[in-house]
């Protein structure tokens, strides 16, 4: 195999390589969970430094509690938010990877069918 063919093969493989859905879900979940935890923690630490009561902190971030039951701008809420962030990130990653893999699979399947049909027609 020539260098050019090897290059072409690697380009193709990298382009159509499968994403591991569970791994992408876990990585997005972990990062998402940490992000929501950090966003809550920043507000709590700022309130603590300014000697403000926790109840007055982050009225807008608290709105997330409307979508994520149990979430609050408190330390326990930050923990709950981390779990929610993980769950949402996991589902997002899993879905994205599954759909991207499906699109690759369908494209390759279609190409194979086309090639097979062309080979059959060539043989006639």
């Amino acid at each position, binding site marked *: 195999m020539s260098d050019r063919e090897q290059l072409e093969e690697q380009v193709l493989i990298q382009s159509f*390589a499968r994403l591991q859905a569970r791994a992408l879900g876990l990585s997005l979940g972990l990062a998402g969970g940490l992000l929501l935890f950090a966003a809550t923690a920043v507000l709590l630490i700022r309130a603590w430094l300014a000697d403000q009561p926790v109840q007055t902190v982050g009225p807008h971030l608290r709105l997330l509690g409307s979508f994520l039951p149990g979430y609050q701008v408190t330390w326990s809420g930050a923990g709950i938010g981390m779990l929610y962030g993980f769950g949402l990130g996991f589902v997002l990653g899993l879905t994205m990877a599954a759909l991207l893999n499906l699109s690759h699979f369908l494209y390759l399947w279609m190409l194979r069918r086309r090639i097979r049909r062309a080979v059959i027609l060539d043989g006639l």
Partner: protein
Amino acid sequence: MGSSRFNLPRRLARLNALWFGLVFGAVCGAALWLASIWAFFSDAPQPRRALLLLSQYFPAYAPTPAGSLVGFAWAFATAFLLALPTAWLYYRGVLRQISGGGESVGSRALTTATARIHLPSFALAFGLMSGFGLWLATVWLVIQHRPGAPLGPRLALLNQYLPGYRVSLLGALVGFVYLLVLGGVFFAGVGWIYNRLIGAAPAAPRSHDQAG
């Protein structure tokens, strides 16, 4: 044949970018549609009020059954347009760094190879997407602003996390730089964890990083 081979990375980058854009658009559209329907049937008014803020960006959107379809279309279009250049940039970065020195892997590898994330391209592409997203959201509010009305009071709250950020044209640039960096770090983290997990898995035949 020679010229088509020469253009192969570019073509595949475009194809993958299109797929990614469609998938990301569909996921975002579905997420907003679901949230809108849930808010519509929810007893509490807060979810509806919070979602209604999106109508500043998505005209005719409302958390109602009909409005949720409008929301789906807007979210799909916005996410698609943001993700398309992002994915194109990423795949171009990845494919350009592939060298021809690897060993042959056989025809089955095309369907079984596992992708590793190329961290520099991933962080740059998604950092740019995050930065551009905030820039666009800020500039949109500035353009739409009517004299006398408050200018983006809710988006301005981001300065609690991003000191110096304001809802203004200059603030849009500050926000762009912030999210370019923070988004880049966030997605580099996502890619790093992903690659670690893939590395721990038994079948990880090829790496984007190997080529880079």
